[in-house]
C-alpha cells in the first residue's frame, strides 16, 4: 500500500460512509446485483458519456460491498481521463500502468479508501499505456488482484471504448451501465445500451445516478 491515510473530499467521504444517506442506495445496488446475478467477482462500470458518475458509483458500490464483509478493489482503468485519484486529492505517480508494465500485483500501488476497500489509480500514462490497459495484460492483472480481493470493480472508459476492447466487453463477469439523471441524454443512453447488447456484452443492468 502506498498510504493508509487518504484524505478524500467531503463528497467522497459521504459516498464511502455506509451510515450516510447514500449508504442505503448503494447497499440496495449491491444487494440487487448479487441477488439477481449471484456472485460477481469482476465488474466493468461504464457509461454512455463522460460525466455520468462511473467513479462515484464504483466507490459507492465498493464501499457497500466492503461494508458487507467483502474485500473489494476499485481500479481506475480510464487512462484517457484518470479521475479516481483526484477524488481523493492524491497524486497519480503509481498505479495500474506500473502493474501492467512490471507484472506485479496492482495492490502494491493501491491505497485503502475504507476498511476492506482499496483503490488503484491509473498511475502515470505514458504513450501506449492506453492500449495496454485494454489488452490481455489487464485481464491477467485483474486475475492477480482477485487472488486477494473478493470483488474487483473496474472504473472503465465510456461505452464506445468498452466496445472497442474485447477485454472490457467480454473479459469480466459483467458490465454495469451508469446513466446520470440530469446529464446523460436519453438518446445516448439508449444507443449505448443497444450497442452493448448487440455486441453480446454481458450487460447486467443500469444504475441511475444523480436522481432528484
Amino acid at each position, binding site marked *: 500500500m502506498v498510504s493508509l491515510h487518504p484524505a478524500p473530499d467531503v463528497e467522497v467521504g459521504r459516498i464511502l460512509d455506509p451510515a450516510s444517506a447514500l449508504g442505503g442506495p448503494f447497499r440496495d445496488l449491491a444487494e*440487487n446485483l448479487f441477488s*439477481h446475478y449471484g456472485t460477481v467477482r469482476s465488474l466493468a462500470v461504464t457509461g454512455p458519456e463522460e460525466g455520468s458518475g462511473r467513479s462515484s458509483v464504483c466507490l*459507492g458500490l465498493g464501499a457497500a460491498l466492503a461494508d458487507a464483509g467483502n474485500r473489494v478493489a476499485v481500479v481506475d482503468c480510464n487512462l484517457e481521463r484518470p479521475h479516481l485519484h483526484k477524488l481523493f486529492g492524491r497524486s497519480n505517480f503509481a498505479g495500474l500502468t506500473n502493474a501492467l508494465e512490471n507484472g506485479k500485483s496492482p495492490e502494491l500501488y493501491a491505497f485503502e479508501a475504507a476498511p476492506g476497500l482499496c483503490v488503484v489509480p491509473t498511475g502515470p500514462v505514458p504513450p501506449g499505456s492506453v492500449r495496454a490497459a485494454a489488452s490481455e495484460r489487464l485481464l491477467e492483472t485483474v486475475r492477480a488482484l482477485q487472488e486477494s480481493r473478493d470483488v474487483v470493480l473496474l472504473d472503465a472508459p465510456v461505452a464506445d471504448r468498452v466496445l472497442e476492447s474485447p477485454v472490457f466487453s467480454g473479459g469480466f463477469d459483467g458490465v454495469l451501465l451508469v*446513466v446520470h439523471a440530469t446529464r446523460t441524454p*436519453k*438518446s445516448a443512453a439508449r444507443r449505448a445500451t443497444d450497442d452493448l*447488447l448487440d455486441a453480446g456484452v454481458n450487460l447486467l443492468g443500469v444504475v441511475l445516478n444523480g436522481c432528484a
Partner: protein
Amino acid sequence: MVSDGWRQGQRDDFTLFELLNALWGRRVLVGGVALALVLGSLIFSLYQEPAYVSEAAVAVQPEVLGVEGSETQAQETIISVATEGGLARNAMRRAGWTASPEEFDRRVTVEPDENSGEIMVTFTATTAERARLAADSYARTFVEEVERLGGQRLAGGTLETSALVTRPASLPDGRSSPRPVLYGVLAGAVGLSLGGAVAVALESRTRRWRGARDAELTLRAPVLGVIPDYHRLEERPEERVG
C-alpha cells in the same frame, strides 16, 4: 436471477409502452397543445357567423332540336342563359333580401346534379328561414325565367325547354357551420397528435430522467440501483441516516 428476456427482445422498434411513457412524461405539453387548439377552434367558432344551407331542386327538360345525347350541355346552356341578367335581382326582391346583390350572388349556387338530372339551387344564410326563403325564391324565379326564355328558343333556336320546381326548399335541420363540438373534437385530436409528436421528439433528446421506471422503459434494461444526487442531499440533511 434476472430473466434474460429483456436482452432478447427486438430493440429497434418503438413500443407502445415507450410512447405512453414519453406522453406521460410530457403530459403538460401534450395537454397544453391540445387545449390551445381546442380553445382556438372554439374562439374561431364563436366569431364565425352561423351558416344554414337550404336547397331546392328544379327539373328542366331541354329538348335539343336535331341533336342527340347532349342533355347535360343543354342544361348548362340553360343555367348560363337563365342566370344572366335580372334573375338574381328578381329573386332577391321575392325573398325580401335587403343586403347587397353581390352578397346574394356569393351565397347562391346553381349546379346540375348528374345523378338526378335536376338543377340544384343552394342558398347559404345566417338563419334557417332566410336560407329556405332565398333558395325557394331563386328556384321559382329560375323556373319562370327558363319558361320565358323557352318561348324564345334558346341557343340559336335549337333548344326548347320546360321547367318545374320538383322539390321546394325546406328549413334545414341544423346549421352546417360552424360546429363547435365537431371543430373542438378535431382540434383536440390534432392537438394530441401534434403534442405527442413534439413530446416524443423532445423526450429522445432530453437529459432529464424521471426515475427507475422511466430508465427501464427507455433503455429496456433492468435498473439495479438509483443513486440520489449528493448535492441535493446536502441541502436536505434531514434525509441523512445514522
